[in-house]
């Protein structure tokens, strides 16, 4: 926090430090180490590390469901040959 101006905090991005107004986050004040979204010199929200990680995970999965399905098809296991797989296919 900046002395004398309690609503200001210092943020850093890629080694660049900037004083930013935290007034819009009064309900949920960020602490050192938190990441925030800044817009016109004001912190708008805290960035949720958890949600970011979940999103990256989803992005990594993109196309994998399709890949998994193709792999299964590649084994030549069509409906009738293997009852278990046919059931799984219908659940999908």
């Amino acid at each position, binding site marked *: 926090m900046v002395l004398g101006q309690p609503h200001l905090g210092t943020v850093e991005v890629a080694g*660049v430090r900037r004083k930013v107004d935290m007034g819009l986050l009064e309900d949920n004040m960020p602490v050192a180490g938190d990441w925030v979204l800044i817009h016109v010199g004001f912190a708008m929200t805290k960035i949720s590390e958890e949600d970011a990680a979940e999103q990256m995970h989803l992005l990594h999965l993109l196309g994998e469901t399709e890949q998994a399905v193709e792999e299964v098809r590649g084994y030549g296991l069509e409906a009738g040959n293997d009852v278990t797989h046919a059931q799984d296919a219908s659940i999908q």
Partner: protein
Amino acid sequence: MNGSSAVQSTVSFRDAQIEMAHGAGGKASRRLVEGLFAPLLYADRNAPLGDSGSVQIGDATVLITTDSFVVRPLTFPGGSIGDLAVNGTVNDLAVSGARAQAMVATFVLEEGLPTSILEQEVRAMARALDVAGVPLVGGDTKVVERGKADGMYVTTTGIGEPMPFVHLDPRSVRAGDKVLLSGPIGDHGITILLARNELDLEADLCSDTRCVLPLIETMVESAGPGIRWMRDPTRGGVATTLNELARDCGLAIALNEEEIPIRMEVRGACELLGLDPLHIANEGQFLAVVAPEYATAALNALHGVEGGEAAVLIGEVRTEPACAVVVTARYGGSRIVDMLVGDSLPRIC
């Protein structure tokens, strides 16, 4: 005035008044030069407008260039107006393929400028001249009323001797030529912006102002015949300089985004302010277009010299899209980068 009465002096510059943008080094500046100065003043209408002019004196060819320095604040991390004034002109000559031989300087001083500051700048100039090995052989001083000069304005004019075996002409650029950049971009412009303290932004950055003559001499030694064009990307940045080249040679300059060296702090500041590093001024870098068979030699030569370690090939020349600069990201998406239009950062250099 110049004896060729047959020359049409058609002024095509239509703006009613001069604005900051006309000095920013981008499109507006170009319009002013091409539309007003060139038709009325330039003798050789067909030669592309370069940083320097070539003059024949008897048997000798001499290159001459001039530049004025308008900076606020006068001193900043990494240097001051004195450094810029000397390095700027020596570099202009160097990228025109000439070794600076002598310089003259004019000072426009603001009433009330503390002598201590003036002395500091003159000392800085003396140091820079010493490093560059260039003598100052003349000068002039004027003083204007308080409020009319931001402290001081400096103009330097230098003459240089062309380096042998170097023939620079944008019209000699060919598809397949490589684009070489001497080092990280954006340092100077962002440093100045932060030094103004208007923005509550802090970073460990300093201006990259330096004399690039030794680097260019080294490069010329190994790759001279293959160097088609050189320029220092000052106001308007790499984007403006390369757009000028693209227009002058009628070809496309294709850059690989991930090859362009940008310091982390410059990236951060640009992200925070919505600026493009390609449009930010540099004072200690140069761009060169080199024939492909000489490109590796040019690069290796630079890597072997102090100050040249960061030199890198950032792209190549292509036929399409003509007269444009395209930047391609690692994942394949591409965008056209135009010249600077307005003046996002006034009084940078």
